[in-house]
């Protein structure tokens, strides 16, 4: 019932102000943080910094923030993040993601994916095999809704 109402509203909005909304109604921001280990009073502490540069082995936290900035809802939202070539994917925070190990062609939970070996056999896919990660958001995102999606990786 609610779902229908939103759909009608969206259609009405589209008629009145199609050009302004054609670009969509979600603001998406990508950020990269790096973990730096500092010693405070002899005890190591991890701080997250916005790096200007990186070295191999640096541990990264990727944060993708989304927010609906318009009065119209977005439905069937899928947020996709290709893993940069120089980064080895590690994991997400809550495991709610789907991953691809073949450049975004096939998607599944990591534990359900496998990699073909040269001898015709298969091995289970590991985090290092991941090429893309995506989140399928089941609920509609309406005005003012926002969230953050995070995953971790290491500079190869």
């Amino acid at each position, binding site marked *: 019932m609610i779902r229908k109402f939103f759909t009608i509203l969206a259609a009405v909005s589209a008629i009145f102000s199609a050009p302004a909304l054609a*670009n969509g109604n979600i603001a998406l921001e990508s950020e990269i943080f790096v973990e730096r280990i500092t010693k405070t009073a002899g005890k190591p502490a991890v701080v997250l910094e916005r790096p200007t540069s990186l070295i191999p082995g640096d541990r990264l936290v990727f944060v993708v923030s989304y927010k609906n900035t318009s009065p119209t809802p977005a439905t069937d939202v899928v947020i996709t993040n290709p893993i*940069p070539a120089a980064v080895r994917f590690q994991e997400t925070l809550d495991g709610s993601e789907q991953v691809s190990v073949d450049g975004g062609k096939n998607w599944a939970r990591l534990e359900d994916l496998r990699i073909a070996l040269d001898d015709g056999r298969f091995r289970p896919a590991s985090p290092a095999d991941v090429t893309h990660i995506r989140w399928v958001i089941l609920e509609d995102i309406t005005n003012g809704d926002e969230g953050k999606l995070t995953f971790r990786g290491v500079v190869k």
Partner: protein
Amino acid sequence: MFKSQFSTGCLRLSAISIFALAMTTSHTALAAGTRAGTPIDNTATASFDGPDGRVELPSNTVSITVDELLDVTVDSSDPGDVATSPDADDEVLTYLVTNTGNGSEAFTLTADTARPGDDFDTALVQIVLDTNGNGVYDPGEDEIYVAGVNDPVLEPDANITVFIINNIPADAEDGQRAEVSLTAEAVTGTGAPGTVFDGQGDGGGDAVVGTTGADDDDSGFFIIQAASIALVKEATVLDPFGGTSAVPGSIITYSLIATVTGSGTLENVIISDPIPANTIYQTETITLEGASLTDADTADDAGAFDGTAISVDLGDVPGGQTRTITFQVEIDDEVTP
């Protein structure tokens, strides 16, 4: 429904720092890693049904450049101590210098022959780069190293073989060892891990000193293996009457006892002894370790008699071994006692 989605988002946000603390695990030593200067670009894309149909919306792109990590290792390539002898020239120790950083880097090389704690110091002749890459010192073909002139430039994970050429002092003694070290330092700079050289990295970023401190050294060793020979000559006399008097007609049996001492091996040892005046060599009487040798100078027989002296070719004799040679002469009749 909305509430639960939203609160999940908040949880994710607040959990980042906690999650980070749990992950302070070991830093894996990556050999080279991503090449210096490589950008890490990240762009997320949202795909959704909006009012105007399906929308593909990219996020901003975050671009961060990978810095140059300065790292190097030096390893002695010799399997153990290199045997040498006093006063030997152009003796070689071999090392391998590897760029374990992630950028193209030049390295300054330094040899140290005056290491403390060893028995003697060699004289440094020169450092030579294995420019033909065969792992073997080729005098006149491999390039002589001059600091600041032909500092070897190594790509990430690449290595070069380096030779240190030494002269051994004449007063070095058997069993003594000499340590010679090779140091390689990144030309961009060295220091404590994490030291940053702004803008000096390969690929345009900074250069950062890695876990090796951007310098390393390793030592090779020489050991003196010398040997010396001592000769003792003994004589026993048997006169024609069964006694031991030295009279005309008496047979003298000479024994030459050669003793080699030291940790080395004497090579191509030949013992020769002239036949004394007023004696006559008794043909075919040469023995070595009790076995008869012939007088003929042939390749398959160690003994020889050339008319004035006997000789025995002992070949190579390692330290700690003894060889006994005997031969016989007769006292000449014309000698008056």
